[in-house]
């Protein structure tokens, strides 16, 4: 890896981590009173709270931030290399998996159905690429590990804290 590529990954990771803390602050805004007045997320949202209701803000900003993270990875894939994009995707996908499982408010979609779909498609992805990685390129191995991490994270979350009948 060149120094430029390492610097790009470092910069993107830094931004992803900051985004994640903002997402965490937004989740706390579900309570009646923001208990973290000095949090960056609270300050950012205070301007818009009078116009939009809290749940809508949370969902919209959550998905915008997640899409921004995904967009950076795609950009990296086209401008640098698929390997670098896959490596950068490792923490991003893990964070997205954690963020999805942190969403408590199911008003706008069936959270349970969403989780099941994500895990199902991810398991299929892991199976297909896991078999391919035995014979082919490292990028595919990394993609399989990424997807496996996602499936593991979601499944673990569901098994420990969610509806136990999910696995029935």
């Amino acid at each position, binding site marked *: 890896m060149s120094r430029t590529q390492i610097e790009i990954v470092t910069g993107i990771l830094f931004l992803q*981590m900051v985004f994640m803390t903002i997402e965490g602050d937004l989740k706390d805004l579900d309570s009646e009173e923001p208990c973290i007045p000095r949090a960056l997320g609270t300050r950012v949202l205070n301007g818009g709270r009078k116009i939009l209701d809290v749940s809508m803000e949370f969902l919209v900003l959550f998905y915008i931030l997640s899409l921004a993270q995904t967009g950076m990875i795609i950009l990296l894939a086209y401008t640098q290399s698929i390997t670098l994009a896959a490596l950068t995707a490792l923490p991003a996908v893990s*964070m997205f998996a954690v963020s999805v499982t942190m969403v408590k408010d199911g008003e706008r979609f069936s959270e349970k159905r969403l989780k099941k779909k994500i895990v199902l498609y991810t398991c299929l992805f892991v199976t297909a690429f896991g078999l391919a990685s035995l014979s082919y390129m490292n990028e595919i191995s990394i993609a399989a590990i990424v997807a496996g991490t996602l499936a593991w994270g979601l499944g673990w979350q569901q098994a*420990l804290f969610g509806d136990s009948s999910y696995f029935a």
Partner: protein
Amino acid sequence: MKCYFRLIRVQSTPLTLGILAAGYGLYHGTVAEIEIIPLLMVGALGHWGFYAMNEYEDVRYDRKAGKDDKPLVSGDVSKKQAQIIVASLVGSSLLLAGALFPVPAFSAYILSAWLGAVYNKRSKMDTISGVYLGIWGVLILYTGFYYAAG
């Protein structure tokens, strides 16, 4: 038993492991190597310890926000137990890292541990606390990178 898993937020372990693996993979071009296992073991112990520390430091804010499902707020885990868990996990991750990591990787990991503790202490007080976590992530990335470099 579930309350202890909630305390250490076991479900979010892939976050730290993913960043460590990304750093490792940046150097080697792949993460499918057995040598990565000690790195991930240290990462898992550290992740659990520092997340437990985060729960401990945030308990008064969580109590105010009515988060009764949190193990320290509900009383499922006592403060004393949490202190022991934090000390055991953080201590063992640092000792293991000292024994197994090359000096540059250990230095990056120690710095990340310090910054993680700072974040846990200051996250509810400092607006720029997200920057602390951002730098923490970078240090964890370089821990994996320097570990792979040997």
